């Protein structure tokens, strides 16, 4: 143990300030005890109690500063004392603290506000949203778990006040070229979109962009808007707005099945629309209205193609270059063993998982999922995949206490490896969603797991075919080309849409005898 001290005559410092300096010096590793004091009689007593004494200290008085250090060895003592001047003058770090904690605080700070964006817990949404509506704001409510009766009351109030409620559980909107929530940077144009599905709107807008056209507005309605309890209030208001919007020439709806009464009203309204309309209702078994003006599209891709076509050919900026050619399905199947009959999909985008199921089921396949089109195909939260299985990694079970897979890929990585080493699996299908508020590198988040999975797989016979769709544009904050290249370098086959990726999977699988559940499956 070593002790050392310094006396600085006639250097007055405030006692509280000195306590702070003392605390900083005491944090140095190897320091046992420090004292930073003015040499009053009482303080000199304190010093001798901790074993610090000397003629200089005894001679000092209350106008003199004493700094004493007790440490494990003399080198530490010297170094602490040598740093004393800096400790006495160190600037204090600035931490920004927000003084705004309520909606009222926000409105006082920004009286001209016209939109409130809510990511607060669902149970608190109603009173805050109501206040915002009464203050004349429109709403983007990202929060989920809002009781459906509250959603209805809010939307009725909004309708009375001619305000728009995008949400609850709304992940994406693009209003006036501004992306709200998870949204891609897409060209501004004349195609408008409405829908309860965030990733559905994301993929639609990206596909329109890749076709060389652009988006006027993409209005998220919240996942429950088309239920009969809510009655499509926001969807119908959004339709009114896009119909009245001079910039919008074509309107597309990207949805999942609506409540029957709401569907009927929606169809009626669409039929009466003054602009060309495209409707894509994923997973719907109800036939589209034949012969009417609505163009029914089976997939998001079909919806984008229809919208582009309806917009008519005028000057079109260059469309995005198509991706490099793929190996033939025969070539790929040749690398599989006979037992590799199954496909596994792990999705960040719930709607994309849904669409993939639709495409496979239409071809007669049985597909299991935690978010199935048919309840009979439900895969429980703790169940292991069997046959063809497509998992929505963004559902409540997987996101409990975690960030959404669009931001945090850790759970997906675990599952990627698990599926990869299953000898019955031939195809692993993944989606990657770029855009604002998503992870800086969605591919990077799981790539090592993909590589690890393939490496583990290569120890046994048969190669694993990994297929991916990327939803994004070259203008997104992430580097689209780099994300594609990363995947390709890992041997992943890359597509720009979920439908195309899934169709390719279908081609690969259709060489099998009735894939899915069977003696060989699972």
């Amino acid at each position: 143990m070593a002790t050392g001290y310094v006396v600085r005559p006639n250097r007055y410092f405030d006692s509280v300030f000195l306590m702070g300096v003392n605390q900083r010096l005491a944090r140095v590793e190897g320091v046992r005890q420090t004292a930073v004091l003015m040499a009053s009689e009482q303080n000199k007593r304190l010093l001798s109690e901790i074993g610090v004494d000397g003629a200089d200290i005894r001679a000092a008085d209350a106008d003199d500063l004493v700094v004493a250090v007790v440490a494990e060895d003399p080198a530490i003592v010297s170094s602490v004392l040598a740093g004393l001047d800096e400790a006495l003058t160190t600037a204090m770090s600035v931490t920004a603290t927000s003084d705004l904690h309520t909606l009222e605080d926000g409105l006082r700070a920004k009286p001209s506000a016209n939109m409130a964006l809510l990511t607060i817990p669902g149970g608190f949404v109603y009173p805050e949203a109501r206040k915002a509506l009464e203050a004349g704001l429109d709403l983007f409510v990202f929060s989920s778990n809002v009781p459906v009766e509250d959603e209805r009351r809010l939307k009725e109030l909004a309708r009375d006040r001619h305000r728009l409620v995008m949400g609850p559980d709304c992940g994406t909107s693009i209003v006036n070229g501004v992306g709200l929530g998870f949204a891609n940077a897409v060209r501004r144009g004349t195609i408008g979109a409405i829908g309860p599905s965030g990733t559905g709107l994301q993929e639609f807008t990206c596909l329109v962009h890749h076709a060389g056209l652009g988006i006027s507005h993409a209005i998220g309605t919240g996942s429950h808007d088309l239920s009969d309890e809510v009655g499509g209030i926001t969807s119908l208001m959004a339709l009114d707005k896009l119909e009245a919007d001079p910039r919008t020439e074509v309107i597309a709806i990207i949805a999942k099945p609506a409540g029957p009464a709401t569907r009927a009203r929606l169809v009626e309204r669409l039929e009466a629309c003054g602009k060309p309309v495209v409707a894509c209702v994923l997973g719907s078994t109800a036939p589209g209205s034949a012969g009417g003006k609505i163009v029914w599209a089976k997939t998001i891709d079909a919806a984008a193609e229809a919208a582009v076509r309806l917009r008519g050919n005028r000057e079109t900026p260059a469309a995005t270059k198509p991706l490099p050619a793929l190996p033939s399905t025969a070539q790929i199947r040749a690398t599989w063993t006979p037992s590799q009959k199954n496909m596994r999909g792990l999705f960040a985008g719930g709607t994309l998982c849904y669409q993939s199921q639709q495409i496979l089921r239409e071809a007669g396949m049985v597909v299991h999922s935690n978010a199935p089109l048919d309840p009979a195909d439900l895969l429980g939260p703790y169940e292991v995949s069997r046959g063809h299985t497509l998992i929505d990694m963004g559902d409540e079970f997987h996101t409990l206490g975690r960030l959404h897979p669009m931001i945090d890929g850790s759970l997906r990585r675990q599952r990627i490896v698990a599926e990869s080493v299953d000898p019955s699996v031939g195809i692993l299908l993944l989606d990657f969603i770029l855009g604002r508020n998503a992870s800086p590198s969605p591919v990077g988040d799981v790539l090592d797991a993909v590589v690890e999975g393939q490496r583990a797989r290569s120890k046994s016979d048969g190669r694993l075919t990994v297929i991916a769709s990327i939803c994004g544009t070259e203008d997104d904050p992430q580097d689209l080309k780099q994300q594609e290249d990363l995947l390709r370098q890992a041997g992943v086959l890359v597509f720009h849409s979920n439908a195309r990726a899934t169709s390719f999977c279908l081609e690969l699988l259709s060489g099998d005898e009735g894939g899915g559940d069977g003696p060989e499956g699972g």
Partner: protein
Amino acid sequence: MDLKQKITQANDEATRRLMAGDPVLVDVAPAREVIPGLDGKVITHSGPRIEWRRMCGAQQGAVIGMVLYEGWAEDTKAARAMLDRGEVQLEPNHHHQAVGPMAGTISPSAPVWVVENRVFGNRAFCRQVEGRQQFGEYSQEALDGLRRWRDLWAPTLREALRHIGSLDLNPIIIQALQMGDELHNRNSASSSLFANRMAVALLQAGIPKERALPTMQYLAGHNLLFLGLAMACGKVTADPARGVEHSAVVTAMCRNGTEFGIQVSGLGDAWFTAPAPAVEGLYLPGYAKADAGLDMGDSAITETIGWGAFTLGGAPGILPLVGGTPEEALHHSREMRKITTGVHPIYRMPAFGFEGTSVGIDIRKVVQLNLAPIIDTAIAHRESGHPIIGAGLTRAPMECFVKALRAFGERYKVTETPAVAG
């Protein structure tokens, strides 16, 4: 007028009274002469009512100190036995128009500051501030300090004060707030200004040098001296705001090291208590967080009327206690604005743009914003027998305000009128 309007109006009245205070030092007298009920074997203490057995270590130490100081027992063993047998009556300071720092113990022969509120005519009392006995130390040295106060400094100051009649305290307070004092942990400027005035008074009163000099030295060397006066001013200012029907304004905040208690204007003398919080702070050499006692003292009366931590924005010297940045200090001052009713017209903070201090803590706003009053305070040891060990920041427990709001609702909510029978 509906209920909300009644409450608003009542709060405005209570706050008006808080802002109208005109405190004047009129005497320095032995407690038994001026404090009602403080005669016989009585010791008053800080915080809400608490029995001897439940008192924290430091407060027990301070009480033992007073028993010895009064000569009621020969030694600490006898003192403890006396207290265990319940032979000493223990009373909260607040019930006797008094306040005291840390353990806050006042006994019959202990001289106290006597401050009068010129506007309302009421009085309040506070003992002197020192660094040992009130923190639970009861050694002879610690008690010697009390004896010097009783036998020399206090009577001398009394004589000097008598000579000048009285001393207006607002001029000192207003000036000190603009010189970096916050009047709870930072009292250097106010103590200095007070010492200046009293030095002149001592000379004018012709007090002989053998008493005047040591008294002057006491004043000159004590940079927390004014805290005792500030606390008395706080109490004398807050008391007239009690008992305003429908008012949700806080009239007292205090702690005894075991519990934290508040009183509310529209709820009479009821106490709303919760366990005393820990203090986040800095420690003197040789001490650490594990040694610390919980929040203690009547000194939160300063925050109750808008000084102390409520004026952190104006007290740069306290910055290290609050994490060290001017931005955070201003942040705290802005936060306290949100839970108070009014802005003081004459107590101002230069670093806060010379705006007035925040006055009139509203229990409804505290609960609504989940924002409790912030307090900066000294720290005592958990156990008896130690002097001051540190200083830091703490918050009044939200539970006190929740309990008070519940009681407020029970008392003032409009109840349904029963249906008239056909």
